[in-house]
């Protein structure tokens, strides 16, 4: 038998070997079921249950002793009822190079700023993927060049963002949308460059003993658009997202004093109609091992204020949030979070519950419930007034 020693074969063998050695795939696939217990405000939102499938694989490869890496995270959601909720996104496609005094990141990724729990006020780099969830924690991948300069006196992050991602809004038949509907295809921009406006940001972050602070400035396209009222040819009203060019300076601080965490976020924004200030401040206190068990109970309280008051795009214009977090510290990592947000101005209330538990080694079951009470017509949250829902989300993690 002739030995296979053809150079091409050897190359192929080497390549196969390299690829199989290089990087790793992980991620999750999940099935989501939402049940709505009230008839929707708009008759076109005519479903009371909704199935959704999500897939988020992740490829990661590092070399150079971990000082260089690439990550690729595509995301897909298929939704039963809402065409806008069915979407594909690249959550991450990044090259990273780390050195002693700097770190460079090129590509699409997600960045989080902030410390509070009920609202992520100062978090601005990424656009919110609003079709995913109301909690604004799901983000669209943001293209950027990010250079972090690492010094003894703190880290300075510089961001250049060459492409803006428009907010995704639920479609006509989707629940949990504005009434009237917000039309992404009718978006307007202050900048003539539209989504090609180059946005810039800088952030200083460091910690001093038990104080962690972040001081940031952002210049560019507002992530949260103003919503202007328009009508189409048939006279049906709809909302037009309008993206201003803004300047925003923000500060986020956390003081960690034993079992007590003190949190503050504040911002000053100009360029989006009137100049305004907003803040979110509060605490989280943890009772460790309650009633001689392994269970930790956290108690949260936050106040949220937006100077624009009733005209604020945000639903957090003069709101108090209280909540409790239970961590069972068990093998299944069971935890639960309940929260209530009370609008001091309109009296509207928003109740939220989230819980999760691992099943076996690879499955995770999450429960979520969001309920709206007493929203007044003038309140931005009035749109969701009949969209109370309970969700079960089962994922397989690999």
């Amino acid at each position: 038998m002739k030995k296979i020693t053809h150079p091409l074969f050897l190359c192929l063998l080497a390549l196969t070997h390299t690829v199989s050695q290089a990087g790793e795939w992980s991620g999750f696939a999940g099935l989501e079921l939402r049940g709505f217990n009230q008839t929707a405000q708009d008759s076109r939102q005519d479903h009371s249950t909704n199935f959704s499938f999500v897939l988020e694989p992740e490829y990661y490869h590092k070399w150079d002793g971990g000082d260089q890496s690439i990550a690729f995270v595509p995301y897909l959601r298929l939704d039963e009822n809402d065409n806008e909720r069915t979407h594909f996104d690249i959550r991450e496609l990044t090259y990273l190079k780390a050195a002693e005094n700097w770190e460079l990141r090129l590509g699409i990724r997600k960045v989080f700023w902030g410390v509070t729990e009920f609202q992520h006020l100062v978090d601005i780099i990424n656009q919110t993927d609003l079709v995913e969830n109301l909690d604004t924690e799901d983000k669209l991948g943001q293209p950027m060049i990010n250079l972090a300069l690492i010094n003894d006196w703190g880290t300075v992050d510089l961001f250049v963002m060459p492409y803006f991602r428009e907010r995704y809004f639920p479609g006509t038949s989707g629940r949990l949308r504005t009434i009237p509907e917000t039309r992404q295809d009718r978006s307007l921009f202050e900048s003539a460059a539209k989504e090609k406006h180059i946005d810039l940001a800088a952030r200083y972050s460091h910690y001093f003993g038990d104080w962690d602070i972040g001081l940031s400035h952002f210049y560019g396209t507002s992530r949260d658009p103003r919503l202007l009222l328009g009508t189409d040819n048939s006279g049906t009203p709809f909302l037009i997202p309008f993206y201003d060019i803004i300047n925003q300076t923000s500060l986020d601080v956390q003081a960690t004093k034993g079992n007590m965490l003190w949190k503050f976020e504040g911002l000053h924004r100009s360029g989006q109609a009137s100049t305004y200030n907003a803040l979110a401040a509060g605490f989280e206190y943890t009772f460790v091992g309650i009633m001689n068990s392994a269970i930790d109970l956290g108690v949260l309280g936050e106040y949220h204020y937006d100077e624009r008051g009733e005209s604020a795009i945000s639903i957090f214009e003069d709101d108090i949030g209280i909540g409790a977090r239970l961590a069972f510290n068990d093998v299944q990592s069971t935890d639960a979070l309940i929260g209530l947000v009370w609008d001091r101005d309109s009296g509207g209330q928003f109740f939220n519950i989230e819980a999760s538990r691992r099943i076996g080694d690879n499955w995770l079951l999450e429960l979520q419930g969001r309920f709206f009470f007493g929203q007044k017509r003038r309140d931005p949250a009035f749109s969701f007034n009949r969209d109370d829902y309970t969700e079960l989300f089962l994922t397989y993690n690999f």
Partner: protein
Amino acid sequence: MKKKWILSILLTLLLNNVFAETPKEKGLAIAIEADKRDSGWTDQIADMSMILKNKQGDTSERVMRITTLEVPGDGDKSLITFDDPKDIKGTAFLSHTHSLIPDDQWLYLPALKRVKRISSSNKSGPFVGSEYAYEDLSSQEVEKYKYKWLRDEILNGRDTFVIERYPQYEHSGYTRQIVWLDKEMYQPLKLDFFDRKNSELKTLLFLDYKQYLDQYWRPDSMQMTNHQNGKSTVLSWTDYKFKNGLSDRDFDKNTLKRAR
């Protein structure tokens, strides 16, 4: 008469100090010697897996990588990156430990890309649902305990010092621990934990010690048994590497964000 009495007390004290250690002094001296012998490794990288077992025998596995930086005069710095279970893959935990004041701890949550400074008063809480508490796994500094030598004893054919030690950290979950310290390695072979009510809570066995760099002894396996709930956790160490040239930079919040 009175003068003579005081003099004899002073003499007794002096003689005691010079010629015979009290059990407390002996315990402390052994702890200092153990600390001295385990100094100078600079930094350490290792893989760790935990098998959690409940009373019924059901098991669950945790896999993580741990890097540690020796900090002379203070507690060590460590970074733990989780690989299993898959739903917490990529979660990373950074801690700058201290002897008597709370550690500085940050948690990185990969789904949100969020770094959270967390309260570290909870040293007595379970680590990832296992029978280990955070304080069982954090660095062992001399100042963390007061000591009392109890006796010498042969354990599984090895000569050991049996020392009782009392945690000085106010939030510790233990009133006391009894440690069987191998006389040759100056490393523990067995550790008994007593809870806040002074009842026997857990026993930890250190197995299969190997020596690295001709000096540092590390166990391949550590078996923790909880006598009160019948659960156990077997912890296995693999791939110990020392003196990797790590620095403070490898244990900062920037590194935490890209640990995986």
